[in-house]
């Protein structure tokens, strides 16, 4: 008979959960409000979600001080892992989200903003990302990943236009496949090391110096495939241009930043010990992926006629850059990676926001895409300031 296990509460240090719980509570609050009194103006929901995000941010900041004092904290039967990587990742995610939300206050009516659920799903998604980032347990990563992706699929679909559904479905199916790959990869790792926590996996593998290299490589391939999808590296990037083109400019901007940073953090965790294990094959494989991503994405960006698609391809190539940083794996490169990504976040959000500002409700006849270049060529004449800012972001 299993003796009842008594666990002291503070050993669980629940506090590590606070940053994740806040958005969930927020989402629930929004849902309840909508239940009680439907038809409220969307500005309420925007403000609410902003409020919750601010609280989340506050908790993260004091976590940062905490972290700076006594290093990494393990929470909750060491499922939660709050270390430098996690905190920075979460900070970026929350910051980017805070930037995104006010954008939905525009006067132009959008279908998705009429839904309060939009904001709830949005907060759930942020919680999903935060969970993903703050753990090194494969299960929680997987669940967090799926939670945020599902929320994201719906956010895209909510845009309520034929093409947005099509893109959402594409994104969904490829996401499902990627989830399959992830689980298969995790399974093999589990088979090899008998554990599903990354630090233990790395310990075990290091201990027997990757004796059966074959398995490790297969596991890594599958994991790489799944993250390839999330980070839109070349062979797995097919969904990016369509999804970006179709979703509203702000959402596209958001999508090009936050899910990627979460995926980066997890990828860094996973591949960190592998890179140091100087397994030559991994080096070459990552190397090929990164080079392919950067060059092909940029070349395709060159031939695009639609600004948003072009920006999509540019975000793919940026992801390639960052993947290169992971490939090097030195601490300097990691900090450089974050710095790079923050800069990229701002410039990308800015660029997409610019698209957002002069978005057109009804497509002008003969326009094959939402934002063809021709529309922008006149910009310099009409609104020079907007053009200048856009130029700045593009630089």
């Amino acid at each position: 008979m299993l003796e009842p296990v008594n666990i002291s509460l503070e050993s669980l240090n629940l506090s590590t959960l606070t940053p994740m719980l806040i958005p969930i509570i927020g989402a629930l609050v929004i849902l309840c409000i909508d239940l009680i009194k439907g038809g409220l103006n969307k500005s309420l929901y925007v403000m609410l979600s902003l409020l919750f995000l601010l609280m989340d941010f506050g908790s993260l900041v004091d976590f940062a001080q905490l972290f700076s004092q006594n290093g990494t904290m393990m929470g909750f039967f060491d499922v939660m892992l709050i270390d430098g990587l996690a905190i920075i990742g979460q900070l970026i995610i929350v910051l980017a989200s805070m930037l995104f939300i006010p954008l939905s206050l525009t006067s132009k009516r959008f279908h998705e903003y009429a839904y309060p659920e939009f904001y709830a799903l949005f907060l759930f998604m942020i919680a999903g990302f935060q969970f993903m980032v703050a753990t090194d347990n494969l299960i929680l990563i997987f669940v967090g990943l799926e939670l945020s992706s599902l929320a994201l699929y719906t956010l895209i679909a909510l845009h309520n236009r034929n093409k947005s559904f099509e893109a959402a479905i594409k994104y969904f199916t490829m996401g499902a496949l990627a989830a399959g790959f992830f689980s298969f990869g995790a399974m093999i790792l589990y088979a090899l090391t008998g554990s599903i926590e990354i630090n233990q996996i790395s310990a075990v593998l290091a201990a027997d110096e990757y004796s059966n290299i074959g398995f490790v490589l297969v596991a890594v391939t599958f994991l790489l495939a799944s993250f390839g999808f999330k980070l839109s590296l070349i062979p797995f990037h097919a969904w990016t241009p369509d999804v970006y083109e179709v979703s509203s400019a702000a959402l596209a901007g958001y999508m090009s930043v936050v899910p990627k940073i979460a995926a980066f953090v997890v990828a860094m965790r996973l591949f960190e010990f592998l890179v140091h294990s100087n397994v030559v094959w991994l080096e070459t494989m990552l190397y090929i992926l990164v080079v392919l991503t950067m060059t092909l994405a940029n070349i395709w960006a060159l031939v695009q006629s639609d600004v948003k698609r072009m920006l999509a391809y540019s975000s793919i190539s940026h992801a390639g850059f960052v993947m290169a940083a992971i490939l090097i794996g030195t601490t300097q490169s990691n900090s450089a990676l974050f710095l790079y990504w923050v800069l990229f976040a701002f410039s990308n959000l800015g660029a997409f926001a610019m698209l957002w500002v002069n978005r057109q409700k009804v497509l002008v006849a003969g326009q094959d895409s939402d934002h063809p270049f021709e529309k922008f060529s006149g910009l310099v004449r009409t609104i020079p300031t907007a053009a200048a800012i856009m130029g700045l972001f593009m630089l």
Partner: protein
Amino acid sequence: MEMYLYIALFAPFVGSLFAALFSASPKTLIAGIVPSALLFVSFLSSLVLLIHAMDGNTVHVEMMTWMAAGDLYIPYGFLVDQVSATMMMVVTIVSTIVHIYSIGYMDHDKSFNRFFAWLSAFVFSMMILVMSDNFAGLFIGWEGVGLCSWALIGFWYHKESATWAANEAFIMNRIADLGMLIGIFLLYWSTGSLQYDTVFAQIGSVEIAVVTTIGIFLFIGAMGKSAQFPLHTWLADAMEGPTPVSALIHAATMVTAGVYLVVRANPIYDLIPDVGYFIACLGAFVAMFAASMALVNRDMKRIIAYSTLSQLGYMFVAAGLGAYWVALFHLMAHAFFKALLFLGAGNVMHAMNDELDPFKMGGLRHTMKGTFIMMTLASVALAGIFPLAGFFSKDLILEVSFIEHHYILYTMLLLTAGMTAFYSFRLVALIFHGEERYKLFGFHPHEAYKYMLIAMSPLALLAVIAGAFKMTYFEMVTKVLPMTEYHIHNPTVYWIMTIGTQLFVIACILYAYRKYEVAKEDKKMEENIGYKILWNQYYIPHLYDEYVAKPYQELSRIFWKDIDMKVVDATVDMVANVFYKTGEKTRGMQNGNLSSMLQWMVVGLVVMLALAAVYSIATSLVAG
């Protein structure tokens, strides 16, 4: 003494600035008088300097540093020794006269002031050239003179031919200047400085091969400026400019700069006698060549230009053979009577309102009494008849060539002397003697202004008495130049030679008179080949034009159109297109179909798996 030097140097400069102030406004007389007066002042101060130099001492002054980089140090230094004093004398005398003359000549030309500005600027740069104490200063004068000649030849800029001639002159001079510059560089790197004194001191230590190259390059510079054989066409075309310009520049000063350079650099040329001999041969050839062309030419000013060319040939023969003082003496004498000849021609041109073909004139001796006397006097001096200056200087050169046992040169020079006499008197005969052909063309000649004739008189005087100064001139100059005595040992040979030449020259004059007394153009003579060759100046200008100017234009057009536009530009754009093309091609991969997307994912996976398998097998083999 320094004060005189500064006056002599800067007087023309002040004159030119003064005239330049009025350059835009219409003709104002003072703009002519002030520069001439200032030039006269400069003439006086150079006279004083000459006397000062006569008793052997030189004046050396250094104004300020011009260029000082690393161990290169070039100051604005000016040196007045015997050689430069004589040159200054020649330049100032002739230019004062020409200034006064041109007041009259240009009085009804609308850009009267601009003319004077450029003329005095020319004299100023000539003075720098003559008085500078280092090669760089010489080069400043050299190019300055080139610039002013360009401006003056192209003075009537609305005439297309004038501007073309000006450009041609300038470019040809530039080619020579390049040679000169290379010579100066070589000089600097071998002797460490460009000052005359240091250079001539150390030139001995430099090995012969380098000295010869320096000599050759400096001579190329001289050749361009004094229009020797390959670069001579610009002189004939330079006649486009107003006559006083030709008188001053293309008779007395600029063209003699080349001779001055060779004379000034005599220590260098002493070390390399064979280069000297080459210069002499070239000089003789040019003399013969130019004289032959002058025989048939129908343009009055061109005939005189060719005669200058042949006289220059003479001077180079003398300089080449080492008789530098003889060359300088001939230079001085020649400057006087050639300037006189040009000014006379100017008068005639004015009378015939710019008609140049002597065949259309004739019998002007009655109407233009003064000019007739002066021109005959100058021609006689040119021919080298006994009492006048020509005899003393030109025959001296004949003697030099005779003594140095260069008999071929002697005969050539003798022949040219004959030809000179023939064409100069052909000119005089055609213009002044015979029946007044000009009446057919409705000219009504009138004598030039009184003061112009008075201005020309000193030249006539000098042309006559210059010979007398030979002895005093000789002692003065040989203080600097090498003392070389020339007199034939046995007097009989000497006498036969001198009288022989005299008789030969007089015979030519009489033949010219008889032939051109009655100026009937005999068609027959013009047909024969010889005439045609000479007439087209041996087709050399045609040759230059055809094989130098045109291909240059063609080549540059080709360079521009084909190479620059197509080749270089295309490569750059091609690089950009490469990206664009690859983008287009690979775009196909990105069709919207979902299943193909999924397939791409699986393909990615399979490729990685394959690599993994290969790798693992490899390691296991390695390990195993």
